[in-house]
């Protein structure tokens, strides 16, 4: 009985007793969720256009952030380094298309997935060779990103809002809006959706598959760069960030592999639920439940919607 009380009643009494802390936990979860959503967005973009689950998306986040800090360490001004990094992401997209994807056109999707595992290994080795394995400090101030904190007295306590977290939320929202407009309103966006629906049909009406792949990998690269900057500013830039990117998996399971809104909503659900679980229920079992709670939440959603919240229901005729 006591155990049931601890699980089902106690945490809620605690939430009601210290609502300021509840708001703080939800805010932290919201910010983490936004960053998970950004990582997941990179996966979704590539999956939508090519049906490839890009295993290298996590390392692209690290690679983007490392390139930025590395260039700045060489004396390149911060914003020029950002522009150069965008260039690097473009070169990466072209190279991936030419060297990895083009030779594998018409191969089963699992082969393309395996190729991205190879790409992941290559980028780790290449990144470590060029930039070294040591963690680096993100050039937050040089980029003009805010670093202060605003404390708001509310609900009988205090809630702190780090300015960098607010900036992350705003930048993520702008990025999602831009991508949504680009893919829904522009000619290229429509072509991309056509490719996503049917490669053969899209090619038959003159859409160049290779060009679309470059664009989509480039877009995923820019998303990875932004994610790397924001997450790097919260902790530091190291290869450990690649591990954080694994959190995008439950986000994708939950939100669906092909839905941009799914990635956003899924990211927020995972971010907030893992923080609430760790904070209110974690201490009952010795803590550290944040690592598996997202997968548990995703599994529950899968039970009811196997295609994810916003994923397309695929019906294959046999």
């Amino acid at each position: 009985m006591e155990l049931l009380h601890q699980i089902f009643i106690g945490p809620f009494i605690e939430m009601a007793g210290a609502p300021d802390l509840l708001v703080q936990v939800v805010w932290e979860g919201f910010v983490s969720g936004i960053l998970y959503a950004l990582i997941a967005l990179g996966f979704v973009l590539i999956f939508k256009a090519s049906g490839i689950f890009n295993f290298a998306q996590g390392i692209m986040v690290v690679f983007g952030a490392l390139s930025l800090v590395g260039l700045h360490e060489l004396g390149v001004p911060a914003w020029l380094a950002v522009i150069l990094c965008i260039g690097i992401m473009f070169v990466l997209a072209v190279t991936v298309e030419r060297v990895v994807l083009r030779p594998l056109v018409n191969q089963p999707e699992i082969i393309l997935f395996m190729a991205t595992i190879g790409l992941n290994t290559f980028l780790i080795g290449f990144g470590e060779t060029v930039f070294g394995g040591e963690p680096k400090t993100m050039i937050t101030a040089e980029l003009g990103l805010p670093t202060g904190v605003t404390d708001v007295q509310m609900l009988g306590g205090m809630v702190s809002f780090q300015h960098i977290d607010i900036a992350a939320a705003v930048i993520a929202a702008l990025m999602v809006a831009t991508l949504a407009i680009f893919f829904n309103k522009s000619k290229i966006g429509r072509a991309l959706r056509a490719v996503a629906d049917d490669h053969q049909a899209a090619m038959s009406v003159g859409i160049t598959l290779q060009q679309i792949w470059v664009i989509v990998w480039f877009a995923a690269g820019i998303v990875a760069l932004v994610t790397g900057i924001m997450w790097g500013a919260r902790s530091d830039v190291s290869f450990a960030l690649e591990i954080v990117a694994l959190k995008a998996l439950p986000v994708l399971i939950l939100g669906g592999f092909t839905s941009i809104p799914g990635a956003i909503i899924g990211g927020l659900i995972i971010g907030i639920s893992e923080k609430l679980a760790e904070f209110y229920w974690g201490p009952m079992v010795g803590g550290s439940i944040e690592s598996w709670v997202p997968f548990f939440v995703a599994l529950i959603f899968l039970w009811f919607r196997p295609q994810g919240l916003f994923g397309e229901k695929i019906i294959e005729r046999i």
Partner: protein
Amino acid sequence: MTLTKSAVLGVAVGAMLTTSFALNAQAADGHYIPLTTYRTGAFAGSGTPNANGMHDFFTMLNQRDGGIGGVKIIVEECETGYKAQKGVECYEATKGKGALVYNPYSTGITLQLIPKAPIDKIPVLSMGYGLSAAADGEKFPWIFNAPATYWSQASGVIKYIASRNKGDLKGKKIGFTYLDVGYGREPIPLFKALAKKMGFELMLLPVGVKEMQNQASHWLQVRKEKPDYMIIWGWGAMTPTAIKEAAKIRFNMENFIGVWWSGGQVDVRPAGKGAIGYHAMTFHGASTDIPVFKDIIKHVVDGPGKTLTKKAEDVKEIYYMRGVFNAFVVAEAIANAQKITGKKNITGADMRKGLETLNLTPARIKEAGFEGFIDSLKITCKDHAGANKMFVQRWDGKDWKKVSDWIEPMKDLVRPMLEEAAAKYVADKKDWVTQKCS
């Protein structure tokens, strides 16, 4: 097969054979010391300076003294990425080349090598890490963890906190956040025993490897529970993230103390001014203004010896210095083994004897250029941890400054617990090799 393909294949096979022969020849011609390092992966920030420090010290000895006892030192690195499985692979790949000692730089790898060491007759030196119980030399003849065990350190931290509270910790709450792997969990039994003995409340906060850079909820827990002190047992990206999060919730940095593996510049720099006041345990100094570092700079960093450090400043990294200290212990043990056995080229078994009778006196420390940097160290058959002394350093925003005297661990509490744990470890191992010390 075309001519070009044949040529390429020929060159590749030739290169492989040349490398292979070169390594075998090297192993036979010198003191062969394999280093299981991690310059890649999530823990590279801490692993790289460690590896550089060891590498540069051995290179300096080769350049300055022609090796040890007239025999060159051969160092071969094997990358583990801090993964136990890779560490074992490195061990298996190098043990046959005449390895004298293994320095795993990972508790996970150390735990894997402990059962292998007596079989292959190659000692393991886990300097200030690994299995605390291995300090019991009677039960673990092949394992050494000088100059101090994790349990000694845990008792030292609590002793230091007690000293700031007039010896009374009753009613205090001490939080312990740790990397949720073998390394981080190692001191928990000691902390629990101390909490019971001294009457403080212990709050455990494990951080999974996946959450190293995502600790917001852990530190909100700290904000809620309001512990008087926080102790961190972090490694790699965990510590800088924790320090940033602690600063974020405005935890008093003066009451935040790290293990000696959470006390490098790489741990405090990312938090900037927020890290000022953070404390960490250590068992060596933080100044390079002593003869040995001048020699390393002269003969290796700025000299003809090849260094892997990127810039001269890297020598000032705490983890680099620790690598140097580790290499010094290895070098002294080799010299000691040569003296005991009368042989120039020693074996792993000889090295074990060299380690077990190592006595670094103040005179020898001064002669070797380490005066003021380390305390004297005496390893015995019974006590493979040796000196056990440590002190506390404080980050002032630029440098680490010593803020305590040398602290003795609570030997009366720690030693019986070590012996009990050692006996428990070997109890169910039928053919375990032990020794009787006089």
